[in-house]
């Protein structure tokens, strides 16, 4: 095929294990529909539609499936004029094929092509088309010797809607048609990769949008609860009951576990998205796009958009981590509280043991005294028996006189007995 007038690049999420039809299968289904008007070419199909040719190829990558449909004149030496009329015809023709592709694409890049001898002519051609289409330029630059312009979306939905749409105008400058055709086809290959990377990046962002939107309300609500717990923890130690600490611990662990899962999942996706961002940046660096007049280059604007797509991931991680740090502080406070309470209990226990010991010593002393009295009573009784035998009439008097001696003897016996202890 020569220089096409319109190219449509559409990418899809593709996971072989989920069993979607392969790109080859999809193209075969399309070819069956067009019968004899369709012919197989090396990596796709070619369909003849009136005076136009439509060329369709499909590629399966690891995570992405890409289809490229190009429409142009049958003549290989045809120059594209970028007229509104011509572009409308191509839109209709290519639309017949894109309708047959699967639903729910990741990205749709439409590239309109014209041919210009030199830069001034290209700028005039571009301006004429924009005036006719009532559109304006978002960014423009020169890539591989071609003027590449991105048209501003009618609605400002860049980066937050699916599929990611781009409408571009490509005008090869100052070269012969065969060389221009080769350059343009080379750029399509790069744009197909870009459609895949950018589509997947956008899908990441769209897929996480609801969760990212939650951060404000969820963070606020969690922060309020953390503040309440912190206030509770500021009470004097004696006023914080162990049951209340247990409740705090349970709550904090629930929150902490939720936040840890969220943070690690978001970090994982941020890293994945970061890989795609690096690939797009590498491609833009290879473009080495030259700026034109007062316009921003395509690569500068696109890189900015893709960086903005993934920056909320990083913000989310930072905000969740900030909450986790606060929860860690609370956990430390709970631990400190428990430590202090344990220390207090231990001091109280020690004081209580000392009292008990004093009471035991006192008791032992009383027992000793009782022991002496009992022994003295026994000695006195034995002495009475002896006195009654020896001096019956004076037994009572002698017994009474013997009592101090019995006491002294009992004290002596007690000391001898307790000396060993």
């Amino acid at each position: 095929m020569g220089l096409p007038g319109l190219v449509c690049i559409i990418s899809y999420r593709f996971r072989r294990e989920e069993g979607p039809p392969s790109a080859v299968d999809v193209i075969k289904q399309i070819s069956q529909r067009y019968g004899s008007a369709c012919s197989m070419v090396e990596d796709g199909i070619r369909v003849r539609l009136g005076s136009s040719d439509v060329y369709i190829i499909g590629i399966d990558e690891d995570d992405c499936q890409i289809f490229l449909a190009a429409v142009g004149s049958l003549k290989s030496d045809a120059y594209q004029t970028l007229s509104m009329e011509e572009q409308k015809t191509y839109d209709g023709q290519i639309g017949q094929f894109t309708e047959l592709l699967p639903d729910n694409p990741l990205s749709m890049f439409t590239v309109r092509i014209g041919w210009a001898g030199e830069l001034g002519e290209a700028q005039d051609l571009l301006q004429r088309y924009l005036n006719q289409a009532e559109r304006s330029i978002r960014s423009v630059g020169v890539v591989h010797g071609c003027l590449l312009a991105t048209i501003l979306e009618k609605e400002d939905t860049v980066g937050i809607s699916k599929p990611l749409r781009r409408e571009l105008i490509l005008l090869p400058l100052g070269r012969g048609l065969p060389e221009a055709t080769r350059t343009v086809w080379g750029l399509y290959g790069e744009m197909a990769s870009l459609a895949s990377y950018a589509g997947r990046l956008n899908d990441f962002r769209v897929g996480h949008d609801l969760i990212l939107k939650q951060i404000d309300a969820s963070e606020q609500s969690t922060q309020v609860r953390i503040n309440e717990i912190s206030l509770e923890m500021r009470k004097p130690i004696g006023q914080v009951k162990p049951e209340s600490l247990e409740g705090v611990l349970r709550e904090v662990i629930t929150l902490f576990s939720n936040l840890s899962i969220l943070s690690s999942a978001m970090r994982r996706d941020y890293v994945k998205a970061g890989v795609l961002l690096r690939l797009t940046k590498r491609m833009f660096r290879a473009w080495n796009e030259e700026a034109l007049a007062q316009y921003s280059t395509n690569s500068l604007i696109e890189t900015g958009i893709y960086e903005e797509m993934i920056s909320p991931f990083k913000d989310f991680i930072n905000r969740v981590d900030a909450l986790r740090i606060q929860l860690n502080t609370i956990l430390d406070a709970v631990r400190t509280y428990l430590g202090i309470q344990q220390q207090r209990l231990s001091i109280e226990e020690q004081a209580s043991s000392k009292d008990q010991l004093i009471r035991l010593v006192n008791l032992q002393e009383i027992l000793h005294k009782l022991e002496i009295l009992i022994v003295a009573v026994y000695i006195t009784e034995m002495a009475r028996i002896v006195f009654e035998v020896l001096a019956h009439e004076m037994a009572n008097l002698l017994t009474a006189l013997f009592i101090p001696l019995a006491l002294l003897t009992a004290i002596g016996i007690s000391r001898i007995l307790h000396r060993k202890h």
Partner: protein
Amino acid sequence: MSISLPGDWFVNPQVLADFYHRYKDRPPDEIKKFSYDQGLSLSKKLIDELGIKGNDERAIAELLRAVLRDEPTAKIISIAEGKVLLRNSGFCPLMTACLSLNLPWAWLCENLGWPFFHGLASSVNPKVNLSLIKRRAKGDPYCDHLFEIGEGRLILP
């Protein structure tokens, strides 16, 4: 094969993932009924344990507080005649599971979360309606669950 789900599903993302992958192709009404019954059975146990009496809004609120005692950001916002408004504004455990294991958030809420809560409240009063006034899975900043004595329906926006 009957539907089964461990009781700790609301705190265990892996349980939710296993459940989704096993039953995602089953009719939604079957899963909703299962989840409703699970809520019903849990609340019957709690009502006995806590000695909750009556079938009015206060009894419903008491039960919800008991179920959500470990979910610090779920709060009962108002109790009016025949109505209890429960708001969950924190980081939703279902949302966390969906993000970490790439599960469809809306599917889990519609088939598992809300029928479970409806079952919980229905144990107190079988005529209670549950309306989801706000839903985080649709972009609202929080989920508002309105329990209202009515015809015993689960009403999604």
